[in-house]
């Protein structure tokens, strides 16, 4: 009850003040990170109105309610502009749940551990790359738990996309046309292996100059199966990744221009390589990073979003749009404090994108909303993620000793062309590939992450 001594707008006012003053420390009533370090409970850092949607909306919206066109105005400030339009005009519904207070549910356990362990050890060198205090490539976890500027916030997103040293995502994708019909459907597998910035603190295979290998290969439908890509990211974030594609029918590797990052990988998909993880390009190929604000936000980050036990393959119910299949069902909650980050594609003189705006949860440094604008300043696309600790009332998936944490679904909406790409991290996709977050006994590098590997995956 002690919180009552603060008036209703106190939290939002403080967030504004922090933005104006450039205060990096997360938390309003108390610094967040010491609380996370002690008990992982973030609730003491924020007043009621930033922890409870009911308090924030003065009772208009409660956990258990569904946001629809009729009540979306009450949370308009908590949604990115595209999500708001989807609810307001396209029949999208968003389920509301209680806010997650236990921060351990927002990370893979090892990643949070590494973040806490290495806290304060990251520095940006003269070029803007992240190194430890002794000049080594980053050693795991979020390098900047309380980012002082946009580049530091971007580094948290970029260095370890999936928060695991190795991840393989079995992805099922549906691409919905403006008339609400399904235009394309793909199964693909996405593998990412960090060489540096690993939670085990090691450099994989001694390759200090490489940040990660990442590949994607399509397994369905038949006409696309076998098409595959390999991205090699350098640790130096000024350098463009090498991008190779493989065409199984011709048994040939195709080298793509390294700066061609604003095209879809396959027909029908709305997002570009550049959009992946809100940090699809090396962070120093973008510029003019700016933290333009701090605000509460609605984000789909709680474990109710995990569909294990509800669907055998973790797929999601859909609704809305002309054919009632444009949007995933998601469960959003009030995120007390987000950094609002903007950046421009300064390294891409031909980019059709003018800027991206990212809302980053200060607790785990992960984005909860992302939109791009065209060069005229018109809003263009969203890449709305949905995360979960893989543990609900029906099923818990373990990652080592702890419940796994990962993304579960994404909505990528090109609102100009009005095309929607929605995909889920499925349990398994065509070809028998399963989602997972540990290397195990596999030689994943040679199996999935070399030119020979993608050639082999294509012919399989």
């Amino acid at each position, binding site marked *: 009850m002690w919180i009552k001594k603060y008036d209703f707008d106190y939290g939002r006012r403080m967030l504004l003040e922090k933005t104006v003053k450039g205060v990096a420390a997360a938390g309003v009533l108390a610094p967040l990170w010491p609380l996370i370090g002690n008990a992982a409970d973030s609730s003491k850092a924020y007043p009621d109105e930033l922890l409870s949607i009911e308090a924030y909306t003065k009772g208009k919206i409660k956990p258990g309610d569904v946001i629809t066109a009729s009540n979306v105005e009450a949370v308009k400030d908590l949604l990115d502009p595209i999500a708001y339009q989807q609810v307001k005009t396209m029949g999208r519904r968003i389920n509301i749940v209680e806010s997650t207070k236990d921060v351990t549910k927002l990370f893979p356990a090892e990643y949070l551990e590494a973040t806490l362990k290495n806290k304060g050890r990251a520095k940006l060198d003269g070029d803007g790359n992240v190194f430890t205090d002794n000049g080594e490539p980053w050693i795991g976890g979020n390098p900047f738990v309380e980012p002082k500027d946009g580049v530091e916030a971007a580094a948290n997103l970029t260095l370890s996309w999936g928060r695991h040293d190795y991840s393989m995502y079995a992805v099922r994708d549906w691409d919905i*046309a*403006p008339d609400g*019909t*399904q*235009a*394309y459907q793909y199964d693909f597998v996405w593998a990412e292996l960090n060489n540096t910035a690993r939670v085990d603190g090691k450099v994989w295979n001694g390759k200090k100059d490489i940040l990660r290998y990442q590949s994607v290969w399509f397994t369905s*439908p*038949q*006409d*696309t199966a076998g*098409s595959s890509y390999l991205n090699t990211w350098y640790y130096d974030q000024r350098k463009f990744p090498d991008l*190779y*594609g493989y*065409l*199984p*029918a*011709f048994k*040939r*590797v*195709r*080298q*793509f*221009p390294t*700066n*061609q990052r*604003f*095209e*879809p*990988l*396959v*027909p*029908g998909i709305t997002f570009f390589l550049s959009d992946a993880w809100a940090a699809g390009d090396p962070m120093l190929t973008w510029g003019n990073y700016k933290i333009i604000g701090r605000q509460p936000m609605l984000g789909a980050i709680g474990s109710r979003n995990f569909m294990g036990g509800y669907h055998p393959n973790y797929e999601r119910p859909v609704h809305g749009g002309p054919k009632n299949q444009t949007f995933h069902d998601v469960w959003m909650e009030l995120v007390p404090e987000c950094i609002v980050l903007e950046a421009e594609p300064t390294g*891409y*003189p*031909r980019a*059709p994108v003018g800027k991206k705006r990212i809302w980053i949860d200060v607790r785990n440094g992960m984005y909860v909303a992302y939109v791009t604008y*065209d*060069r*005229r300043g*018109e809003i*263009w696309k969203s890449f709305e993620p949905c995360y979960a600790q893989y543990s609900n009332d029906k099923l818990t998936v373990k990652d080592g000793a702890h419940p796994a944490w990962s993304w579960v679904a994404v909505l990528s909406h090109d609102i*100009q*062309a*009005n095309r929607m790409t929605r995909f889920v991290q499925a349990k398994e996709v065509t070809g028998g590939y399963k989602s997972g977050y540990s290397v195990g006994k596999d030689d994943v590098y040679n199996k999935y992450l070399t030119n020979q590997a993608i050639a082999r995956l294509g012919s399989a």
Partner: protein
Amino acid sequence: MESFRFRLAALVMRHRGFTTLLFALVTAFFAVGLRNVELKTIFSDLLPKDDPFVQVYKDHPNFGNPLTFTLMIQRKDGDIYNPETLAKVWKLTRDVDLAPGVDHDQILSIATEKARYAEATPYGIDVRPLMEDHAPTTPEEIAEFRARVDKAPGARNFLISGDGTATLINATFIERLLDYGEAFNYMQKLVEAARDEHHDVHLAGQPALTGWVYRYESQMFVIFAVTLAALVITLALYMRNVVGVVTPIVTSAVAAIWGFGFVGWLKSPIEPLLMIVPLLLIARSFSHCVQFTERYYEIYAHLRDREKAAEITMGVMMVPSVLGIFTDIVGIFLIAIAPIPAMERFALFCGFWAIWLIPTGTFLISLLLSVLPPPKNIDKLVGHGGGGVHRKFSQLLRGVAATTYGRPARVTTLIVAVGSVAAIYTALQIKIGNPVEGSNLLWPESEYNEGVAQINRNFPGVNTLEIVFEAKDQKSPSRVTRQADTVLTMQALQAEIERSPQPPRATLSFGDYLMEANRLFSGGNPKWAPLDPTDAAVNAAAGAVMVGSSPKAFSNVIDFEQQNGTVSLWFKDNRQETVDAALAEARRAIDKVGADHKAFLIRLGTGTIALQQAVNNVVDRYHWLIIGCLNLVILIGCSLAYRSLVAGLILLLPVNLSNVVLLSTMHLMGIGLDVNSMLVAAIGIGVGIDYGIYLLSRICEEYHGQDHDWGRTLTAALTTTGKAIMFTASIMMIGILPWYFLSDLKFMADMGLLLTLIMLINMILALVVLPLIVWLLKPSFVGRKDLLVGESVDLSAIVAEDLGSKPMQSAPA
């Protein structure tokens, strides 16, 4: 006096308060509808909806690039391979990306990363943009760029002209976001800024055409205002009194409010390209009011009682007015027979407007006349002879009359007969269609058409015929354009057409992209270009083409879901001979490869060539049908009104002859039949026949007054009503002719010219041919006294009955 029309007139005047209130309420109702009035050109509505080509176009609106702006940058003194030109192309391309509503994924120029070249390397295929991250500046970079262009057949054929002096930027817009006016203004500004002493820059494409039309349409308001002002000034000069000026203006304004308000309530957009017709209706209303008012003056001069005079005028003029307007209404409504949505909407708008001329031009005008102060110069107004001009007109008409009876009539008959035969012969030579390089909405020398001409000169151009391959299952899991039968049939069709005696300038299909991919991914040797005739091979090539790009990059040849495709054929021009040959050749080739396949149908077709033919087809099918129907309806209406079939025939003969004379004049001027002339013919007959009705009614009247002397009858009719006809025709021409001189839209100017011509010809023939026929036939209905259309009234009886001692001052007109 006991007839229905006089009783109705008496009833209206007796309840003037109620009638006025009724008019006020109806006008208020329609005035509220004005807020929904929308003037908008819907281009697809200008096409006949039942035409098979138009149906293909509507089913596959993306083929033929209807949402694409094309910019051509041409170096005047050399080729494009210099830093200045390439920098200009780079900058323009980036600026085009800032256009409102542009699809950022569909901008293509040599400066975009979508223009690529590929090299087979020992390790695979290296695909790179023609330009690096900046426009080439040094001689080395330019040499490298030129070398890359040589390795990019797509860019070489479709983005850079054969002589290397010109290059294109294509930008496709998102229909939902495209505001044509805004986008065009933005693009045109870029084009104008980019022109300099070394560079010509042209803009073409359907959205640019729409933009130009919108820009010129805004000019229409000025022309509308100018012509309206001219009409009012003419009216004021002719009438020279308040009543005579105010009455037509108020009456016409009320009819206009009803006309616009009606379509406002229906939420039916008005086609601005046809706005000349409402102006014709205003002119029509003006001239009608003038005749009504003049008649009122005559009666008022006798009666000196505004109310009674108005009532009698209403009774007298009701039937001729209604009959005259009825023919207008029929003429306008029958335009809707042609299945062109814009025409249908327009017939509804103008047809009802014409209907509204009946209550306003009969009742409202009488109410106004009964309350407005009578002109002080009434005696002068009804006095015979008038001023010098009037006298000259009378002399002229007396001379005309003299040619229509007696001995001179034989010569006149001979001249008319020979002239008619010659006119019919010449009219039958007329061709259908008015091909213009670019768009026939605009003048050949307009900036847009000049741009199209330049692009046609340097590139395959814009005269395309699209042969559409349409999937039978639009959600086919094996995507029809990636199947062997589809792609190989496309190639067979192209080969068949390319072998024809008059082959197109270029052909393109998805198959061409697949062959290039096949060549490249098989190692680069041209012998690897042909596709194996298997689904696996075709699908592999399609995968190679599509990987790492959006299907939008190929939206010129396939749809987003890769189910439907098109074979595009480019022709050198859109002259009718070319169009006929192209369609015949396409039909032959389709028959050869078979139109009905297991997974798809081949449909001919869309693109400029097919759509031009669709419009010509509708003109061919409906021009004579509309004229036939119009003749039939008018024949029935007039025969009933005059209680004589001969009367109907006598009235129709001059207007049809006018139509024939117009067609022969058009043929001699090198103008073909098109939608414009169809509209003009219908309106020409509907509105033109009024002259005949006025004159014939007067002949019937004068026949009794002139003691059944045909010569005196015709002379009297021509010197009185004939003068009114000349005034009516002049006032109409004042409303229409300025459009020819003032409009930058050829479509409107043409219509202005043709309508002026038809009105002029109608006037001459009504004044000469109609009396001549009456003289030759001497029909018996002229002698009847019970005709509905008679304008005679025995004012002396009324004076004696109602006004006692007031003296008669003038005989009935």
